[in-house]
């Protein structure tokens, strides 16, 4: 176990944005006030996270415990290298998005509310990787889920509400899945720590598997895993651009983070209790079961990436295209996590690739969403079919988008190249691990999906920036300064990451794998890997060529404007099921309603009879004033009489029972 170092920093990282949230809510409409608090909140978080680097880089885990806050056990922050990397990305990109939002939000309503909940969401999101046990993680996860709802429905249009509802209810459903899974896990293992559990060494029983499935489901909803991705292409585009950037760039990553933590960390043998030499064989039962889960996860990942890319191809709304692309990219990450679990002790390449891709995708997807925001801000247009020649009108954005797109398609020397190559290595290794033929097919789908990615980004670049402008295009202004800074910072970091993959690998991604139970030899192999072998470059060239070919093919056949029928979507079946459930409920309750009506009528009759009977025996007060006062209809006065009598009796009884002793007379 790494050494532990107690520090307030994780708490500070969470509380600073929370405090900003409270401050902003006090004066929602005061522009300088809310802007400065938003900046203070993001900068403070970044600073608090960055200050942890010293300890974390020395292999120490930062711990902070408060007993019985929110969880009945310990409210724990525990930051290891993996969590630190996450928190760092979140805090950094959040700051860039906040800077971008300062100018961007000028054309939106309810700005105060937006910035307030922007900060609250930051508090939740950054808390997820810092959390030290499952319940603490759940707390931040739920804060993030609920607070980001406000960002999703920000525009308050009908579309936003319908997307927001889906987001909210699926989010709550996911949260409840997590809660159940964690409850099951705690009941079985007796602990909530995010660490390999000695209790699992004997292999898993049904409850453990159920707990794992529920937790992966809960995190998977947030990650946009097929078939639970339906909220994502609707919710991400309706939010204002800075919020969509964070939803797509960071918040879905918390889902991936959770999946990796559960599958590759909690459900692995404990390095402390098993000697390193026998880790591979020492817990073969557990490894085998997790490996089966990993295989399923690989295929979920493959399906997610393929479907995401397929639906991205036919989108004409910029933000929808990017959201579908997010689904596709999260598929890569889930596949990496799956490979990690599938290969168990030898899974360094899978987890490492997934982590690296999380890191990269966070950068390029937030940049792309911010750029989409810039396009909306300046042209008021989201539909690709009505854009064109933006490279001349907004060159800065064009360059930023170009850098991000080259990254996402995996062009060598841009940031996506390293992680995609690693993930490609991972899937090839997974095939070679046991030569399961289906994984060979999976590798081919991987390549095809990568080509699809190239294809839809060519579409985006071509339609929006490169082709001559169509008629009656709306007028274009230039980007405000803050937006330029926000996008520029991210683009610059991407270039730097892209040209120094070995630095990132050895300083950020590599150390983050220390927390997992991995073969040290393979870990070293992963760290020393040469990314620029001819075979890898060839693979990229193939992908690029294939993508370009597909682009021309699709453009000719006009497949980009294809409309898929409504009944093909999962949502359609969800709605039909809902309608069916309502009808079923109506049928079930019908006899009850009937019985209720029958009894209701019968009882009414009985009441009436009994009452008229009682009224018959009621005395008539006559004309006397005293009798009129003491009447059953004068319930107030009668009650007082009864009470007075009662209290006299009670007082006497009390006096007889206690009074004598009380006043010392006995």
């Amino acid at each position, binding site marked *: 176990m790494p050494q532990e170092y107690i520090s307030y920093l994780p708490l500070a990282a969470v509380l600073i944005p929370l405090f900003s949230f409270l401050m902003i809510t006090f004066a929602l409409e005061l522009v300088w006030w809310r802007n400065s608090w938003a900046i203070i909140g993001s900068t403070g978080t970044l600073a608090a996270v960055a200050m942890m680097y010293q300890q974390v880089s020395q292999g120490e885990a930062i711990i902070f415990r408060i007993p019985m806050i929110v969880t009945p056990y310990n409210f724990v922050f525990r930051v290891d290298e993996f969590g630190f990397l996450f928190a760092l990305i979140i805090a950094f990109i959040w700051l860039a998005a906040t800077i971008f939002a300062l100018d961007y939000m000028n054309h939106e309503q309810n700005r105060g509310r937006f910035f307030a909940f922007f900060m609250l969401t930051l508090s939740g999101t950054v808390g997820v990787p810092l959390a030290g046990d499952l319940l603490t993680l759940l707390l931040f996860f739920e804060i993030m889920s609920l607070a980001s709802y406000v960002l999703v429905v920000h525009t308050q249009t009908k579309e936003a509400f319908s997307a927001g509802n889906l987001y909210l209810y699926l989010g709550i459903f996911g949260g409840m899945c997590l809660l159940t899974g964690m409850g099951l896990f705690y009941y079985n293992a007796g602990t909530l720590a995010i660490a390999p559990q000695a209790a699992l060494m004997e292999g898993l029983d049904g409850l453990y598997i159920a707990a794992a499935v529920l937790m992966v489901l809960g995190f998977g909803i947030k990650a946009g895993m097929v078939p639970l991705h339906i909220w994502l292409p609707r919710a991400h585009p309706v939010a204002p651009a800075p919020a969509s950037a964070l939803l797509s760039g960071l918040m879905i990553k918390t889902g991936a983070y959770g999946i990796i933590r559960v599958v590759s960390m909690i459900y692995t043998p404990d390095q402390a209790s098993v000697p390193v030499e026998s880790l591979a064989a020492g817990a073969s039962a557990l490894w085998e079961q997790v490996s089966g889960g990993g295989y399923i996860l690989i295929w979920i990942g493959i399906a997610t990436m393929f479907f995401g890319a397929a639906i991205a191809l036919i989108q004409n709304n910029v933000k929808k295209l990017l959201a579908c692309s997010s689904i596709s990219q999260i598929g890569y990450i889930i596949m990496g996590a799956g490979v990690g679990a599938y290969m168990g002790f030898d899974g360094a390449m899978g987890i490492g690739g997934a982590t690296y891709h999380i890191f990269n995708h966070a950068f390029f997807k937030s940049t792309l969403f911010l750029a989409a925001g810039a396009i909306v801000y300046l042209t008021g247009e989201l539909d690709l079919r009505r854009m064109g020649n933006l490279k001349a009108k907004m060159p800065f954005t064009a360059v930023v988008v170009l850098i991000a797109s080259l990254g996402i398609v995996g062009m060598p020397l841009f940031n996506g190249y390293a992680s995609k190559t690693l993930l490609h290595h991972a899937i090839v290794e997974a095939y070679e691990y046991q030569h399961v033929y289906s994984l060979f097919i999976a590798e081919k789908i991987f390549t095809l999906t990568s080509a699809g990615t190239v294809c839809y980004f060519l579409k985006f670049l071509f339609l929006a920036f490169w082709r001559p402008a169509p008629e009656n295009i709306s007028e274009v202004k230039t980007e405000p300064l803050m937006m330029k800074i926000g996008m520029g910072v991210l683009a610059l970091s991407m270039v730097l990451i892209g040209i120094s993959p070995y630095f990132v690998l050895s300083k950020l991604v590599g150390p983050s794998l220390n927390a997992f139970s991995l073969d040290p030899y393979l870990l070293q192999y992963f760290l020393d890997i040469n990314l620029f072998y001819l075979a890898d470059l060839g693979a990229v060239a193939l992908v690029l060529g294939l993508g370009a070919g597909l682009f021309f093919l699709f453009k000719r056949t006009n497949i980009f404007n294809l409309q898929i029928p409504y009944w093909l979507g999962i949502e359609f079946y969800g709605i039909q099921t809902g309608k069916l459930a309502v009808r079923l409920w109506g049928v079930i309750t019908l006899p009850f309603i009937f019985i209720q009506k029958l009894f209701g009528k019968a009882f009414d009759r009985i009441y009436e009879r009994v009452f008229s009977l009682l009224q018959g025996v009621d005395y008539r007060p006559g004309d006397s004033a005293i009798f009129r006062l003491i009447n059953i209809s004068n319930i107030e006065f009668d009650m007082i009489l009864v009470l007075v009598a009662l209290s006299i009796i009670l007082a006497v*009884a009390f006096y007889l029972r206690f009074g004598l002793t009380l006043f010392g007379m006995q």
Partner: protein
Amino acid sequence: MEYLIYLPVFLILFPLAGALLSALIPEANDRLRNPFVVIITLISAAATVVTLYYFYHFGGWELLIHQITPGLEIKLRMEPFAALFAGTAGILWFFAVLYSTGYMAHEHNRRRYYIFYLLSLSMTMGIAMSANLLTLYLFYEFLTIFTFPLVIHEGNREAKAAGMRYIIYSFLGAGLILIGLILTFGNAGTLEFARGGVVDLATGSLLQWRVAFLCFIFGFGVKAAIMPLHAWLPSAMAAPTPVSALLHAVAVVKSGIFGIVRVMFSVFGITALIGLELGFFVAGLVSVTILVASIIAMQQDVLKRRLAYSTISQLGYITLGAGLFSLIGLTGGLLHIINHALLKITLFFCAGAIITVTGKKNISDLNGLGKQMPLTMAAFTVAAIGMIGIPPVNGFISKWYLIQGSLESGAIIFVAVLIGSALLNAAYFMPIVIAAFFKEGDFTKQKGPEAPLSMLIPILILVAGCLVLGTNLQLTVPFMHDIAEYLFYSGGN
């Protein structure tokens, strides 16, 4: 400090005396009555706190009030579970009365209202601290009688029908309790509450014990609104909101729950309960209540009725916790007594504030209300999140313990029930929040406080309480665990 042991008697008699004195204040003299009743309840609350403090430092004690015949006694006892109920009721009553002074300002018959409001407090205290079934039964009946005028307060046809329904259901339940009481007394020879129970299944026939147990469950189940017996609760929403809030979310329904838990653990005891083999019957019945009530709640458009069905569902959690016969489950149930009391009273107070300020009773009229009443709706949101059971609001923690309890008793199906109910809760609470904050409506920002301060302040204090209890579990969990252990294990008093 010798005379402090008479505090339980004081807690019962003081509100009673206060009620009688407030009867002397003329109807129109609000300027005297409002401070008077607030001070009476404030002193009651303070006395409750002193009692709890004394109790936790010196342990429990009992007071014999009157002996009818040997074996039949009117007796009070301070012990952990009594402290829980008395503490919750005593403290929340103060906030409810404070709120009432604002809410009732424009209502009629305020004198009658306050008299019975205080009398109900007195009877609730009696229920909480009763030491045997007879005393419990006595105060329980009086509580029904004294809350009846509150239910029919409006005096219109609807209120009278609701009152009639209330009284018939309640007396039906009381009759069942009486049968159970007689059966118990006949077979066990005592009505005392004792740790680990007084019932020995070896004496008397199993059938009779089962009948007695079911009589108690259904008898108290009327007030606890177990599903076939719940109909009085939604119709009793015709009462003024503070009455609904306190009596139908906190005192009356919780007295039913209190009775069920008492009968289960202090009369029958865990050994006998397991011997009866009726645990899963009760838990199953309650599970149906939880789910069906939640589904019905979704179809209600009147805010208070929706809250009433939510109450029915949430009360099921507590009974479920007791019916699981596991220590952790019982801890969860007890936690939910406090947590639900706080959350539901907040929700009702918000509903009442909305009615007072805007006159809107239906959920479909609440679009955009967040502009006019941001604080009220924020409080409503927090309480709704707590109801769903999402951290960091206090509803989460009881749910966690209930899940653990269900697992401990080996019935995963109840976990599914709890989670399903949480999702349904989300489905009927979130639309209100969404409509209030994000939909466009004809509400605009007003000058000055959004609601009368006497209503707004209790709402804010209570919602802060929800958050504090939700984040600082040191305040509740250890105590509830002790109480659950006290109820669960046998031993001396």
